[in-house]
């Protein structure tokens, strides 16, 4: 059950990001160790989502570098991130609304599929075998997340909580090394939050996946994270274990205020 926290797998040095005149991130540096649960917290507009976007290549920082598994990268691009084993969920659900749950999860397997379109058009042979093999893997994720009963439902028809779970499933289907979760529990009720927490912890336990998560619910963050980074107005104001961060006066002033 105890997970061994490993070496540094992702190191961000001096990341600065601006949009026109707006500075979203200023000189952010922190690292993420393998197998840990790293939380990023901060008030709204602190730049947390932007930070995730930088990690998986959606945004390109003007300054700073990203070191992933020892490889120095000036910046990341989305394809390289996906190929390197970084998967993520989004704040506003980014599921493919026109497809079923099963199909959405299968898209997560995209980089594992090697057949070309001609083979797929013919179906019998390599394409069929590959599709079935990946279906098997996806069914494991479906099993894990307990969503068997909705696998053929178009995701647009699902309630919000289930959609979030499916989005997690799509990220898991890629068998990622690092999972970036952007407010996975936003808008959920207590039961849904407990379920989601359980899933996230199980992912970390069973598969050893490193997790970087943005979350507003302080109870959750303090409970499940190994280490926490605190951002405010694009700057880092705290970095350490939940207890250390909880007692950091700057953090208290900026964000925590009264404890929940």
């Amino acid at each position, binding site marked *: 059950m105890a997970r061994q926290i490993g070496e540094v797998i992702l190191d961000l040095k001096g990341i600065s990001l601006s949009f026109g005149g707006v500075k979203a991130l200023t000189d952010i540096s922190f690292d993420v160790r393998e197998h840990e649960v790293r939380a990023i917290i901060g008030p709204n507009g602190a730049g947390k*989502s932007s930070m995730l*976007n930088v990690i998986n290549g*959606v945004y390109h920082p003007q300054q700073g570098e990203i070191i992933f598994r020892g490889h120095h990268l000036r910046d990341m691009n989305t394809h390289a991130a996906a190929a390197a084993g970084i998967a993520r969920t*989004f704040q506003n659900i*980014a599921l493919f609304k026109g497809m079923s749950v099963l199909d959405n999860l299968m898209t997560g397997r995209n980089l594992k599929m090697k057949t070309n379109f001609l083979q797929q058009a013919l179906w019998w042979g390599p394409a069929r075998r590959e599709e079935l093999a990946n279906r098997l893997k996806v069914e494991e994720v479906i099993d894990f997340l307990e969503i068997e009963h909705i696998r053929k439902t178009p995701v647009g028809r699902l309630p919000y909580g289930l959609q979030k779970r499916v989005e997690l499933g799509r990220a898991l289907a890629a068998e990622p090394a690092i999972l970036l979760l952007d407010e996975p529990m936003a808008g959920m009720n207590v039961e849904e939050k407990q379920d989601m927490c359980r899933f996230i912890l199980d992912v970390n336990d069973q598969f050893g996946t490193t997790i970087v998560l943005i979350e507003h619910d302080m109870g959750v963050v303090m409970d499940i994270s190994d280490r926490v980074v605190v951002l405010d107005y694009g700057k880092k104001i705290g970095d350490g274990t939940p207890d250390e961060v909880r007692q950091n006066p700057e953090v208290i002033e900026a964000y925590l205020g009264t404890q929940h």
Partner: protein
Amino acid sequence: MQFFFEVTIGGLLSGVMYSLVALGFVLIYKASGVFNFAQGAMVYFAALTFAGIVDAGMPLYVAFVLSLVVMTILGILTERIVLRPLVNQPQITLFMATIGLTFFIEGLAQIFWGATTRRIDLGIQDEPIPWLLDQYNIVVSTFDLTAAALAGVLVAALAAFFQYTRIGRALRAVADDHQAAMSIGIPLQHIWAIIWGVAGFVALVAGMLWGARNGAQFALTFVALKALPVLILGGFTSVPGAIVGGLIIGASEKLAEVYIGPMVGGGIENWFPYVLALLFLLVRPEGLFGERHIDRV
């Protein structure tokens, strides 16, 4: 050298007329966010209606007023029957609905007025302006110039209307944010009726001018299609953009036909504006005056 001037001026003048058609698009798009592909069919319908009423023996101004009424009704019906049921659908769906509307209006127009070309005579001659011809040996049609002047006045009047009058402000408010406009008491239905009325008016003027030049015939709908490259160059939401875009398209189309055309056998006018728009899209997708669109993740 003067041939070049002739061609350019001729192109600019026809460009102003393209702007007129494009203006109809811009108005509807600004007010309701709908790209009304049927604007071309409406120009055709307006031209036929006007010509038909004149042929039935009415004087020009009566025909004008009657046609305007018809066009306004057509616009209001469109808003009610086509756009309202589709109000929450994505833009592309609305666009496709207006393609369907195009067919509907074309069929309706031809059932009512028949498909034979009707001549429209507005009393302006299509002959070279005498003093330009005598002094500088440049051939510029009186009709073209008058039409361009008329179109120019109309565009300026519309721009002023939007900018300085109370109703114009209300229209801009509706274009920006329907909910907000409603919450400050702007009557949305009336506004939309006005917009469609104005668009109908613009379509009618365009139809009359183009119809007088080329005859009220089905080919008018292709002229209207040319307004699309105009919009791409000028931006979908800009009145001045429609003018600038129109001028550029009009001039470049004529110049290309005259100077590049002979090298490849002519007929370039058919596709040149579209290819020009295409190249422009690759460089500046929102047009010269349009608003930049940023996707939020």
